[in-house]
């Protein structure tokens, strides 16, 4: 574990060095993120222009939901999304061959090597104000509940990472699996910014048990709103994490057996 932390620290510092050589991209990224957040806030404000609640959700709750949803967006781009996106290129360019010769866990190396440190500042400039405002509007706030909500959110990110890992393992079987993974783990994240309860029952179940997106924002906000019990949510979440962990092991093991390299 200590060795892996050391290696990850090097990934992190190296990514910083790479990032510092591309400052312009970084600045434009921040501007784009702030503009995006403002547009989302305007949409929410427009929604609450004539009503005080939306299906029992206040404007503050909706902003809290948006903020927690953004935690996933930024952390996934910070830690693993760029690596998932590059995996297909690494396989096609032969760079994956080199990774297979290293005496470290291949899943760790292939999916966590690059840290997109440019996502750190938007996390601070957009997520903290959104969550802060959402919490500020609440009449009663329990810090303990907020802590539990954060645990559920972070474990939700782990579950989504493991789902991405499982699907990435299929890349060795289907060359064009990237689009499926993008659909399941990226495009669908838009749904995390609206309350799960507005969807039909079957979609709610899909977003809980198939694509564990509901654990990122919906259930954490429900815990803060005292509408969901931490223990039940936590147990289901841990079950999902275990299942995805085992599935990712299976898809990668079978995928590597099938790996044919290039050239």
């Amino acid at each position, binding site marked *: 574990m200590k060795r892996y932390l050391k290696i990850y620290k090097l990934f992190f510092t190296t990514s910083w*060095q790479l990032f510092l050589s591309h400052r312009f991209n970084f600045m434009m990224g921040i501007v784009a993120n702030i503009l995006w957040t403002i547009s989302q806030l305007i949409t929410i404000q427009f929604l609450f222009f004539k009503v005080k609640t939306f299906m029992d959700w206040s404007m503050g709750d909706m902003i809290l939901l948006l903020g927690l949803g953004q935690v996933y967006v930024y952390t996934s781009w910070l830690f693993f999304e760029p690596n998932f996106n590059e995996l297909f290129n690494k396989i096609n360019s032969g*760079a994956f*061959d*080199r990774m*297979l010769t290293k*005496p470290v866990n*291949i899943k760790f190396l292939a999916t966590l090597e690059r840290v997109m440190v440019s996502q750190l500042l938007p996390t601070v400039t957009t997520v903290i104000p959104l969550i802060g405002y959402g919490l500020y509007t609440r009449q009663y706030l329990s810090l303990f509940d907020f802590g539990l909500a954060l645990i559920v959110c972070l474990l939700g990110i782990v579950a989504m990472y493991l789902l991405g890992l499982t699907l990435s393992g299929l890349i060795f079987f289907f060359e064009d699996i990237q689009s499926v993974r993008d659909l399941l783990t990226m495009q669908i994240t838009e749904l995390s910014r609206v309350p799960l309860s507005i969807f039909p029952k079957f979609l709610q179940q899909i977003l809980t048990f198939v694509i564990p997106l509901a654990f990122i924002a919906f259930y954490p906000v429900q815990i803060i709103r005292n509408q969901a019990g931490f223990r039940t949510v936590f147990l289901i979440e841990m079950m999902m994490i275990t299942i995805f962990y085992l599935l990712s092991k299976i898809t990668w093991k079978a995928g*590597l057996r099938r790996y044919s390299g290039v050239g």
Partner: protein
Amino acid sequence: MSIISVENLTKSFKQYRKEPGLKGSLKSLFAREYFDIRAVDSICFRIEEGEAVGFIGPNGAGKTTTLKMLSGILYPTSGEVEVLGYLPSERKKEFLKQYALVMGQKSQLWWDLPPMEGFLLNKEIYEVEEKKFKESVGYLSEILGVEKVLKIPLRKLSLGQRMKCELIAALLHDPKILFLDEPTIGLDVVVQKKIRAFLKQYNIEKNTTLILTSHYMDDVQELCKRIIVINSGQIVYDGSLRQLIERYGKNKTLKLVFNGKVKKSDLGVFGEVVEFQKDGLAATLSVPRVTHAALAGKILNTLPVDDLDIAETSLEDIIRDIFENGR
């Protein structure tokens, strides 16, 4: 004791055919025509510790696929392979720490960062001690003459400097086996020579086993006493370089310079005319190895020879002959 043992090793790849054009693309969307390609076909060999072995073969012969199976990158379709007492496909940490793979066309260092950053990462990955790391970087960079470029971004370095840095990154953990896949590809002759000299010295000093694939016969001739010739996935020759030349190099080459004009037909009686200068003042003949001395004597007596050079058939020609004639 064999450090590498390979028995009936086979690797097949599944591929599909697509008719050209949009129609073909649409057809292959619904019904693909798959077929198997045998990249490596039941090969057997053993390699001893400290040996330097060259894998030679045309493009697509199966050299790199064999190397990838030996290093655990690819799973064999069938057959047995044991390297350093491990099954490479299991990719055990202890096994992966004992070899290094250098690919001439694929870098393991970061393009935008100095080579030293890549070395530091390898230090952690291979758990190299700080003292040992400093010693190795110092020794290898000095011997390869790249001490001054280790802190310069890789993209600013020449191809030769980059290749030397790749070698340092690969050797930091003192591998017992060094797989080299086209290590001198694209390099100029001076750098090629330096890298060959370094690898030769490293092989002797550290007793590291070298497995080399290269299209440059000079690489193989200078580094390897033993060569394995692969064609269409099968081993067509496995033995010493000297035996290969004796077995397949049945002819010798006579390079002649004349001080008077000679007709091509005058030379044809002695052997095969490989090259003939239009002005009739120089020619190259290929003559049987066993009679080359007698024939050279006859030529000296009958033709106006100014200079005569007798040479073995080049390894390149022998190999080309094996590939073309399937011997």
